[in-house]
């Protein structure tokens, strides 16, 4: 498949970069390190394996002759962009910048409201889910599990 050809090329390229980075890595000979104890040995070998497997994947795609894009059962992005924006917004934008309980309240409320749209009745419940999650998670982690919150 075309996708496999592209993926194979990406894997081979990644493997090649790892091999190059490992080969040019400091071998610490001044510390008496032998070649077989050099820090780049294992990542270099693993990079080589990834490179070979990437080439095999690409060659297999070429040899099967199925270069036309086959329809995959898993096509389309669906809700993924919206979920990514909301989750990254919470984890990077809100957490540690505003109090945890507030960040969680805002995130859960927004998430539920966005994905329950256009049902107004369900959207109206969003702040309740947000507040309940914020309260329960904050209490459980701080008081029961004794875990520090971000």
């Amino acid at each position, binding site marked *: 498949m075309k*996708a496999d050809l592209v993926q194979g090329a990406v*894997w081979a390229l990644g493997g090649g970069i*790892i091999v190059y*980075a490992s080969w040019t*890595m*400091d071998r*610490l000979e001044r*510390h008496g*390190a032998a*070649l*077989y*104890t050099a*820090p*780049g*040995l*294992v*990542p270099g070998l*693993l*990079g080589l394996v*990834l490179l070979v*497997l*990437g080439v*095999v*994947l690409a060659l*297999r795609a070429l*040899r*099967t*002759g*199925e270069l036309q894009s086959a329809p995959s059962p*898993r096509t*389309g992005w*669906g*809700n*993924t962009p919206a*979920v*990514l924006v*909301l*989750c*990254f917004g*919470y*984890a*990077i934008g809100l*957490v540690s910048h505003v109090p945890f309980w507030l960040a969680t309240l805002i*995130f*859960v409320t927004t*998430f*539920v409201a966005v*994905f*329950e749209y256009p049902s107004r009745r*369900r959207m109206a419940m969003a702040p309740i*889910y947000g507040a309940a*999650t914020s309260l329960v*998670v904050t209490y459980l*982690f701080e008081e029961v*599990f*004794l*875990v*520090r*919150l*971000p």
Partner: protein
Amino acid sequence: MFEGLVLFGSSIAGFLTVESILWALGASLIGVVIGALPGLTATMGVALMTTLTLKMPSSQALLVLVCTYVGAIYGGSRSAILLNIPGTPASAASCLDGYALARQGRAGYAMGIATTGSVMGTLIGMFFLALFTPLLGNVALRFGAYEFFWLAAFGVVISGNLTGDDPLKGWMAGFLGLFLATVGQESVYAFERFTFGTRDLAGGLSLVPALVGAFGFAELLLVMRERRPPVELSPVDSVVPKIGDVLKYWRTIVRSGCIGTFIGIIPGVGEDSAAWTSYAAAKRASSEKELFGKGSVEGLMAAETGDNACVPGAIIPVLTLQIPGSAPAAVLMAAMLIHGVRPGPLIMVESPHFVYDIIAMMLFAVIGILIYGLVLTRFLVQVLRVRYQIIVPVIFVLCVVGSFAIASRLFDVWVMLAFGVIGFALRLANYPMAPLVLGLVLGDLLEKSLRRGLVLSDGDVTPFFTRPISAFLCALIVLIVLSRFIRWRPHAHRPV
């Protein structure tokens, strides 16, 4: 024999406190709920619970994790029977006959059979766990750096081979995991590799945030990718199976229990393979072959016994070799290390009671799933009606808090996010996650064993190929890889 029974008895006695029993029952319920919800897997459940139990005493934390693990594998059968959607990959085989029975108006009966199979499977697995762990521990004492190197490589190769549709992609995922495990300071000179000057990466990628990302966040992204229609559940009849039905299939139960346990012992293969193999074996041996796929009680019993027997089976190599038998077992092993328990060949010498502690924990989990299977069926049916739009943000909050809780640093949250996106992308491209996880977990062992072996032999690689166990494992890996390459040939000449 008697010493084992005494240790087992003292382990059970140790957990007979109100607090432990409540934790066990609570964790089993959480496991069952996570397992029952399609898209949320046992690995995710164990990873999330690992972060929740960081501050608990190690014995109670591991009790919670074992109960979650057993509960989640069992819980997957609920949605398999009621919705024809496996709650976890381990329950895929249960859909065939479980849902067929539900469509015949026997959903409750099917759940009762699934509960019985799961309980029997776990008990058989526990028996083998008690029997084989000391034996395998003795064999493992003969392992040196050379053998452990090949064992780690074998784990990744066999996991890549047997999980997912394409072994090549499985191996790639596994070797990617092994490579990612090399990020950070290496063990001999503390030299920083692939850190790009980032101090947070010097200690390497934290395992638990990576696992929470690859399984938790990635699964949430997959679940939310498409809006699901409201669920239509089959009506539920009586959940108590007849004893005669259970006794009638005792051969299937024993066979599936043995198959499940032995597949569990194979590194990185896991519960779904155990269920399918048990199902196939039951079908071959059955006098009612024509019923399989159309509501066969025997088929459902085989699948459920097999996948639950795999759980104790997957823990056997964790305890004796520090090699996990499945993806959830890999997370469990990581949790053991976090809690200061060091499984491995010396476990039967240094702390034999720990093995029996694990078996006792499983007994509590069995009691939990038995109770929930018989009493809470209608509650679990309601759980399946909860909308993902509400569950997903709550679980994501737990992913964030859990990742942060490991070391109280935001960098681990970013690791979780990165692994979530990587895991999501890999899944979309049909790369299995179990080899990636196994690679991450085994990377350290593989590297240390290779370098230690080379130091011992002064750079000579021949001991890697001439020592009997090493040679055997090496030959096994070559055979596995070659068998797959040979299979591709006819495919290559298939007309377009």
